[in-house]
């Protein structure tokens, strides 16, 4: 492996729809010689214009949007990692973002900072990803890169600093002035592949000098050396400025802004230079794993190729040769033939074929070193699994998988969709442990379960988009559950005599709420063989089976401790079946005395909104039985946090969008179960009664 970790950049390209992400990615691959011809998204034949970028990629059989595309620029290895287009807070998004070390934020020079740019930026901020900005489409009518720099400051709160100024704009856009080297850059050749360096045109020399001073001034905050040079009125060297800008960028306290037009093949190469100059190498980012032997305590990983292996499988792809597992190595070296352990399953795997993905081909390699990204064949795993060397027990993602809180019935539209749906579900459940699926025994419907409405919507959309599986959906159902609030005694005898061998079993004791949050506790205090030992497991099984459907409204029951302390048996008529039936009867008896209640999932909802919409957001929470925990002002945004019942959150994204002109975004995660208010309990009881009546 010729590269050292210092020459690697793992980056993402994030952009608002239609700001030119596909075109920019295409040009990057062209200039780095990964592809040999440029095809326009909106081609002259009109084919491209009618297709979205995903279809275009499929048509051409390349994988611009593959999980990680490798390219090389100036002796550096750049891995462009696909950042998910959706913005909700799922495990998958979290995983993709943690694989990135830095990002390019692409903005349109006409439209400027749009709502989705805000969303994308918030994600980067949340995961502390350093970024550089690229103001694209400077050739378009109305292009105004300076306005975009100002918006980056005012709307996103970035310390945005222009690294270049344009030479001409709109139809007259000819090139850029690099404010560090103070040279004019023009892009010649059919595809702008030849970079020509010239003196700065006289008419913009003064502006360039002024902007350079602004740049040096901003950069000097991160370099004593540069500050000294300024104070001593010496001309700072290029290296000095680059180092200072790099330091500010890595601290996320400065955002270098570059400009250009990917479509017109102008100024993409300086952007690639900036990726190398300002975005971090993997060893400049601190990554942590969780130690499973010490209650998931965080452990800092050292990107040392000689250390024990810690690697994260962040994406799975079905290919003609089987499952391709994209993997990022954080520590150690993943070599062909090495033995690695999947922390989740504990299974040993031998590393077989190791490859590196290019845009349209794969290259076999011998090993993937710390900080590098590659792919493995023949490894059975799920997305998000951690692989380690034998002897260590670390995981990159928490092993805690929350239980789904919402479910939805899905119906394939035709036979073809049925087959594709199964394939899709199989893949998605492997990718995302919070997404589950099962077939309802009573109705025969396929039920999907997840962590929120948006979470399920995304998978339904992906089924359609990636698997061509059109499905219809039922109404979302909230995962209510039942529990008890006090102790309830039981003493139940199951006795049946219908000719032949009878059934007999008596079970007595009490049920009470669990104290430490366990779902179910069974405590056998039977003494003197009142119930023979061989029947005790049957009694426990009987109680456990009662939990699936609560006697109150048939919701699952949790938080119940069962204590049995008395009972009776018959030498002939008692059997396992009889004691299971007795336990079920005993549970019903005790349960109704134990003051059962219905609980609903409560979500922690965090809305990030411009301050002027804070009142509107609070109003939305209030209308939804939400309890507002607080509001926090952060620069130009305000973060409002509330606990809101999931049942009230359906359609929230639409309502929030209209209440905030699309400028707010929200995340939602399960927080706790809480007893439903009386009015809701009554409504649920009515619904249950209606359902029962219809069944009859």
């Amino acid at each position: 492996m010729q590269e050292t970790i210092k020459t690697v950049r793992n980056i993402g390209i994030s952009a608002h729809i239609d700001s030119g992400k596909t075109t920019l990615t295409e040009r990057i691959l062209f200039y780095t010689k990964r592809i040999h011809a440029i095809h326009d998204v909106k081609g002259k034949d009109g084919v491209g214009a009618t297709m979205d970028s995903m279809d275009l990629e499929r048509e051409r059989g390349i994988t611009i949007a593959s999980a990680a595309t490798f390219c090389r620029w100036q002796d550096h290895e750049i891995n462009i990692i696909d950042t998910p287009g959706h913005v909700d807070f799922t495990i998958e998004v979290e995983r993709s973002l943690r694989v990135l070390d830095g990002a390019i934020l692409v903005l349109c020079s006409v439209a400027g900072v749009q709502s989705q740019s805000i969303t994308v930026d918030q994600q980067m901020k949340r995961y502390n990803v350093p970024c550089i900005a690229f103001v694209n489409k400077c050739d378009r009518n109305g292009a105004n890169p300076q306005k975009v720099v100002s918006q980056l400051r005012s709307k996103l709160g970035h310390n945005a600093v222009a690294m270049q100024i344009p030479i001409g704009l709109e139809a007259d856009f000819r090139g850029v002035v690099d404010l560090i080297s103070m040279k004019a850059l023009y892009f010649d050749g059919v595809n702008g592949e030849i970079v020509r360096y010239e003196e700065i045109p006289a008419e913009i020399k003064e502006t360039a000098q002024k902007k350079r001073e602004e740049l040096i001034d901003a950069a000097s905050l991160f370099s004593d050396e540069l500050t000294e040079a300024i104070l001593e009125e010496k001309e700072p060297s290029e290296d000095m400025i680059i180092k200072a800008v790099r330091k500010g960028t890595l601290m996320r306290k400065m955002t270098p802004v570059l400009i250009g037009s990917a479509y017109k093949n102008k100024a993409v190469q300086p952007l690639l230079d900036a990726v190398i100059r300002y975005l971090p190498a993997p060893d400049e980012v601190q990554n942590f794993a969780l130690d499973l032997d010490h209650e998931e305590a965080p452990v800092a990983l050292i990107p040392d190729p000689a250390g024990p292996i810690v690697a994260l499988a962040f994406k799975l792809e079905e290919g003609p040769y089987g499952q391709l597992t994209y993997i990022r190595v954080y520590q150690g070296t993943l070599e062909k033939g090495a033995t690695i352990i999947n922390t989740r399953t504990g299974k040993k795997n031998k590393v077989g074929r190791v490859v590196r993905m290019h845009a349209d081909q794969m290259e076999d390699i011998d090993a993937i070193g710390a900080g590098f990204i590659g792919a493995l064949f023949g490894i059975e795993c799920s997305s998000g699994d951690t692989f380690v060397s034998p002897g260590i027990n670390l995981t990159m993602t928490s092993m805690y998988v929350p239980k789904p809180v919402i479910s939805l019935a899905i119906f394939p539209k035709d036979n073809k969709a049925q087959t594709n749906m199964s394939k899709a579900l199989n893949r998605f459940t492997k990718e995302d442990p919070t997404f589950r699926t099962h077939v309802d025994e009573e109705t025969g419907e396929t039920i999907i379960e997840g962590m929120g409405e948006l979470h399920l919507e995304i998978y339904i959309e992906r089924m359609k988009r990636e698997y061509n599986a059109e499905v219809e959906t039922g109404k979302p159902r909230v995962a209510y559950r039942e529990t008890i609030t006090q102790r309830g005694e039981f003493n139940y005898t199951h006795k049946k005599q219908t000719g032949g061998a009878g059934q007999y079993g008596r079970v007595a004791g009490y049920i009470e709420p669990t104290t430490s949050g366990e779902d179910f506790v069974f405590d056998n205090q039977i003494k003197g063989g009142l119930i023979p030992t061989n029947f005790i497991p049957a009694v426990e099984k009987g109680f456990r089976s009662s939990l699936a459907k609560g006697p109150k409204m048939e919701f699952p029951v949790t938080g119940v401790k069962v204590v049995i302390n008395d009972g009776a048996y018959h030498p002939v008529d008692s059997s396992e079946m009889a004691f299971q039936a007795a336990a079920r009867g005993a549970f019903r008896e005790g349960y109704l005395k134990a003051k059962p209640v219905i609980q609903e999932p409560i979500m922690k909802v965090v809305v990030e909104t411009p301050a002027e919409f804070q009142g509107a957001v609070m109003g939305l929470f209030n209308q939804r039985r939400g309890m507002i925990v607080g509001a926090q002002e952060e620069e130009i945004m305000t973060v409002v946090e509330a606990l809101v019942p999931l049942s009230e959150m359906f359609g929230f994204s639409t309502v929030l969008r209209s209440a905030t002109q699309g400028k707010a975004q929200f995340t939602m995660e399960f927080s706790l179960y809480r007893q439903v208010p009386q009015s809701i309990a009554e409504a649920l009881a009515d619904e249950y009664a209606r359902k029962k009546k219809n069944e009859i």
Partner: protein
Amino acid sequence: MFKQEMILRNTLRRLGFDSDDVLPEGGFGAVLARAGVGKTAFLVQLALYGLLKEKKVVHVSLNDPVDKVNVWYTELFHRIASDEETTDGTAFLESLLPNRFIMSFRIEGFSLPKLKERLDDLSQQGIFFPSLIIVDGLHFAESRKADIYGLKDFAVKNRMQVWFAVQTHRDEDRKASLFPVYFAPFADLFDIVFELRSEHADVEITVLKGGKSERESLLLDPTTMLIRDRL
């Protein structure tokens, strides 16, 4: 029952006030102490006792994010409630929290108009009408005069009680007044002023202004951060 028990445990009664509602409506109270001595813990306990008496509390923090302030409430509540082992403290706390609202501002971005705007957002929509406001982290300085006087008018008009945390510093000149120089010009606005002083291993609570002259002195236990009697 549990609630009553907790209200009775409000040790502040012993500082010589007629009731545990130590501030009048529209009144200002302050707790002075050096950094890290326990101002926030003290104020959160006042807020918790307010919540127990079914007051609506807005906690304005200029230092800490919402989550951190929330942790103060949870921790101190459980410490106060720890004697009542049989009661489900968590559920009880949950029943109190809808009456509490945390607002966190960056200190440089905080101003009275902004606070009023936020409170109006809440009250005009019928979401929240606070009767007790805790302000933690505001610097008392001449430049804040308009904000502080404005807040007094606002509190009087809306019959709110307002408690402030005021940070003091080592080697302050107190010859001219009981109060630090920067606080003295505002002292007349205040009905009650406490001071927390670190004395050996304890933190002593003294009353600089307000209350009756014959009173017991209290401590803020540095291990639990709870107000307690001097043993």
